[in-house]
């Protein structure tokens, strides 16, 4: 075995469906250190299919950290050990030969498991549809440069807008709170002049939806910020709280 290849023991969460009990199962895989984490799972799945077994289901699409599909808890950490990195961008050179890796799905009651490592994150869509938008019909916009927004402000709003909706913040939070996700959208729109007319209704209705979906409250653990692949600042939550309080005056 060349030193560019490592052998790993895997403990992978297997669950047939939403209402079935799941368990961790053991597997072994041999993989190049240049491969990505998801490619390691591809290799495992090829092996399982050849053996006539059912492959491990997991979400993925862009594999470059932007679509927010991938959603694995690796050794207890949402998206694994590398900071500011979605698990699809994590490469196997960060693991050692002979290491055991535990792979689990996001766990939160608002994200029910669909199968194996795949969960249902439609609650996020419902939070957005409760108010994460600016009400402007197509065709009714004014010339883009008629709205002046200073570079600093625009960049600040952009930092919150980079959220990829992966749900790692919820998975990492001891209370399974969706505050970072919701706060990021509220902050982006609250900073921009276009978002001003609807700001009160927006924050009330999005926060309300967050509760309806069964997400927990935020008690300032900060785990969300630590795992966010886009490094979104927890200041979004503070801004959401301020917006919420202000909305009643």
């Amino acid at each position, binding site marked *: 075995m060349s030193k560019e290849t490592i052998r790993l023991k895997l403990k992978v969460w297997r669950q047939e469906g939403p209402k079935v009990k799941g368990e961790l199962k053991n597997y072994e895989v041999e993989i190049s250190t240049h491969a*990505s984490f998801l490619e390691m799972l591809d290799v495992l799945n090829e092996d399982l299919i050849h053996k006539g077994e*059912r*492959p491990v289901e997991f979400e993925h699409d862009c*594999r470059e950290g932007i679509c927010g599909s991938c959603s694995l808890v690796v050794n207890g950490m949402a998206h694994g050990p590398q900071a500011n990195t979605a698990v699809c961008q994590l490469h196997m050179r960060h693991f050692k030969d002979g290491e055991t890796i535990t792979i689990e799905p996001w766990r939160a009651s608002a994200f029910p498991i669909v199968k194996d490592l795949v969960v*249902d994150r439609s609650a996020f*869509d419902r939070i957005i549809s409760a108010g994460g938008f600016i009400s402007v019909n*197509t*065709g009714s916009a004014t010339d883009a440069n008629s709205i002046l927004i200073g570079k600093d402000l625009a960049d600040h709003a952009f930092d919150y807008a980079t959220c990829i909706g992966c749900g790692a913040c919820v998975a990492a939070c001891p209370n399974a709170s969706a505050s970072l996700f919701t706060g990021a959208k509220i902050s982006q729109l609250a900073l921009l002049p276009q978002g001003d007319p609807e700001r009160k209704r927006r924050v009330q209705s999005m926060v309300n939806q967050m509760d309806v979906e069964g997400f927990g409250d935020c008690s300032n653990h900060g785990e969300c910020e630590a795992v966010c692949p886009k490094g979104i600042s927890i200041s979004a939550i503070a801004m959401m709280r301020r917006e919420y309080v202000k909305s009643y005056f």
Partner: protein
Amino acid sequence: MSINFKTVENSSRLDAKAPSGPLESKWKNHKKDVKLVSPANKRKHTIIVVGTGLAGASAAATLAELGYNVKALTIHDSPRRAHSIAAQGGINAAKNYQNDGDTIHRLFYDTIKGGDYRAREANVHRLAEESVNIIDQAVAQGVPFGREYGGVLSNRSFGGAQVSRTFYAKGQTGQQLLLGAYSAMMRMVDAGKIELLTRREMLDLVTVDGVARGVVARNLETGEIEKYAGSAVLLCTGGYGNVYYLSTNAKNSNVTAAWRAHKKGAFFGNPCYVQIHPTCIPQSGDYQSKLTLMSESLRNDGRVWVPKKEGDTRKPVQIPEDERDYFLERKYPSFGNLVPRDVASRNAKYACDEGRGVGATGKAVYLDFADSIKRLGQKTIEDRYGNLFEMYERITGDNPYETPMRIYPAVHYTMGGLWVDYNLMTTVPGCFALGEANFSDHGANRLGASALMQGLADGYFVIPYTLGDYIANNSLKPVSTDHDAFKASVVEQEERINKLLNINGNKTTLEFHRELGAVVWDNIGMSRTKEGLEEAIVKIRAIKEEFWTNLKLTGEKNTFNKYLEFAGRVADFIELAELMAMDAWHRNESCGGHFREEYQTPDGEALRNDDEFAYAAAWEFAGEGKEYTMHKENLVFENVKLSQRSYK
């Protein structure tokens, strides 16, 4: 070998319906002439939108705002995950905010020329006209584009243009535009005007009396085959770059929706027009699942080279200056490393084919920043490309400040797609195609930052008019999903899925896909020959035969089963690949992304043949095992003069 198909010159089946009159007033007049649907009547119509990328999300939102009932289907668990999210560089618009002489006509001209004169003038001009409205709309939605200190929007320049007209949101323009369209869409979900159907894969277009009246889709969580009926179907299902297996496209990007519609009568336009991007991170091993794009801007400061000697395995720093071949600078002294995408890609391939490629696989060339770092200092290079260097290091483990990057071309975009008329309608009445899924306004080659523009123009500003006209002109009677056409389609899809699951062979979906990809890449990739294309057809047919007798799938159909989804898509890719080869084989010229080695200038540039090939090829499927018919839409150029490109 014989490749047989029928040809229809100047086909009457391809009425482009481009309005008459001067170019500048065609779209304005058309908008004046289209029939309108009253608000009370719009409420009676259900429109099925398949796909929620830029094209689908913008169309769904806008049609719902107008009062139609929209059913929006997507493979993903949320509309926000569509492949559009990954677009990096920017979006073009002829705003002329920089006062550098941009006009709608100039954007039109650049796009037509960039496409090597293989697109329809009227469509391209409309695209340029609507480009300005897209930026206004996006800003109103809160899309945080890059701005100047004074508060106005920033622009950057992109390949193929002499003006600065590209709007961007850092390296995440696609993400921000999609999230804008997605939020508009979710607002209409909240208003009860859009029924959002996530994790649904369209498997068939359902026609009643030859008119599109719905789709059949698989619920990807339960496996159930579901039926959706409506007054029209909009296919916004993206491009087919994944036919190559390795591409910069997201893993779920596929041709299935377009292909199934094709088999129901929608002609497929110019399938051989594919764009290959020169600066991608090369493949590192067999396990490789996709390729990552590195911004083209890197070529501004990086020098491309390979060793002069074949099979030189020394480390790059050990290779002395006079043993390096800076092949782009050598062959193209005036453009150097900044030649267009297709030229840069092809030359990298030639160097590797000669055995001078670098890295473990020999399929890469160096992109070296050492000279720029010496000249400008590491700080400047870091400011310009810091995030890209970081991304490169994350993936490869190499530090590009110390050792040259390794790059190789990768498939990036497909200009071909379903043939549509000026109203974006396919040859099946009531079935429209938007965004990358249609055969597009980009001709044989797309300019950077123009795909986002086209997807959003189609969805926000074109389809609301042209769909209304279709609805108003046809008294469509309601159709129920109990209609026999729906029932027959469900049976057909169930049989197909059972068949896939019951082959019980030895080769996995991925193995077939990889094998197909290698053939398509080698023979229908950057450079093509008559013999190579004939060979490809033989190999593709053999893969098809083996696929249906030796596929191995596990798991069940009535549950989430990603490999079952992929198997269905690979089956369609195999069929598409054969059509691509046939299209490339018949087009005895080189144009844009289609380079036939037999047709080049003495300088090695693409040599068009405007006398014989200034047409769009639209392929009609006649039935399994039957000969294809190729219909020609002759392209008439009244506003531009056709010229030959040169980058020497």
